[in-house]
């Protein structure tokens, strides 16, 4: 087989390697798999917070860990934040102050359901939104402070079984992050 090499101008700026506060973890991808996953179509209930509208029905169905895609829909109120550099130096970045999008439309979002350090349900959600003043924005949603509008919003759920997503302190980044963890099948 003939191999050819080509030379070209660098098509993009050189990627940056950031220095995190903690010790480098040689494991760069933490992952687990399951033989199959159950899919659920869920409707977010109007008037509820995004957090409650996601966690409630899934918990009632025994689902504690899942990846979800939130289809478009209106929210009576929507609060989000972005993640600028952390000037304190504790981490590379830190969540900024809550930003009010008002009566906003979620264009689409992805949310991960897992368990917080204390075992309580945790939702990590990023979304593209159209704010009340018509500007399209994106960021990290504060799901407890987003209220579903008058029409139910469909969510496609991939339920994760055989392992759980658990928030734990990540020494390298010095942040609390969701990580997959094996669970006992019984008890």
């Amino acid at each position, binding site marked *: 087989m003939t191999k050819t090499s080509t030379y070209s101008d660098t098509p993009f700026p050189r990627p940056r390697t*950031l220095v995190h506060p903690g010790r480098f973890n040689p494991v760069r991808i933490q*992952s687990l798999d399951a033989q199959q996953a159950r899919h659920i179509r869920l409707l977010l209930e109007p008037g509820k917070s995004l957090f409650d509208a996601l966690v409630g029905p899934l918990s009632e169905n025994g689902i504690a860990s899942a990846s979800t895609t939130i289809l478009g829909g209106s929210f009576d109120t929507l609060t989000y934040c972005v993640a600028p550099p952390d000037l304190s130096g504790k981490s590379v970045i830190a969540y900024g102050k809550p930003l009010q999008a008002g009566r906003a439309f979620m264009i689409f979002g992805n949310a991960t359901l897992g368990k917080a350090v204390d075992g309580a349900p945790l939702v990590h959600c990023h979304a593209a939104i159209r704010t009340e003043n018509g500007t399209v924005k994106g960021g990290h949603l504060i799901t407890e402070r987003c209220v579903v509008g008058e029409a139910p919003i469909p969510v496609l759920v991939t339920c994760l079984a055989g392992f759980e997503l658990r928030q734990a302190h990540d020494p390298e980044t010095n942040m609390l992050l969701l990580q997959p963890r094996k669970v006992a099948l019984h008890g």
Partner: protein
Amino acid sequence: MGRVAYGRIAPNEDLVQGLEKLCLAHGFRNAFVRGALGSLVDACLGSTNGKIVHVAGPAVEVVSIAGEVRSKPDGSLAASLSGVVSDTDGNVYGGPFVAGANIVCITFEVTLEEWLPAG
């Protein structure tokens, strides 16, 4: 549909090749992205005129993503990912993620669903 894998990609790893390596870790040869979110140091998105869109962080949040990992004729794996990112002011940009140029900032959470092509 085959198996499903959830992975957390660590900082300073490339998003596109990270998904390919996640497939390697689980023996997937073809997979769909089912759900994913996380942050990048900076984002590098392709455009139709051959230029790229460089979004400065950190952090640039990935707020929407769709894509797949496919086996290529030479046996290698290649992820194709397209999505929307937001900068530190919440402003949004979209396009295909350029392989090797989208470095994870804090974490990237992704669920891959193995696809078993017929035949």
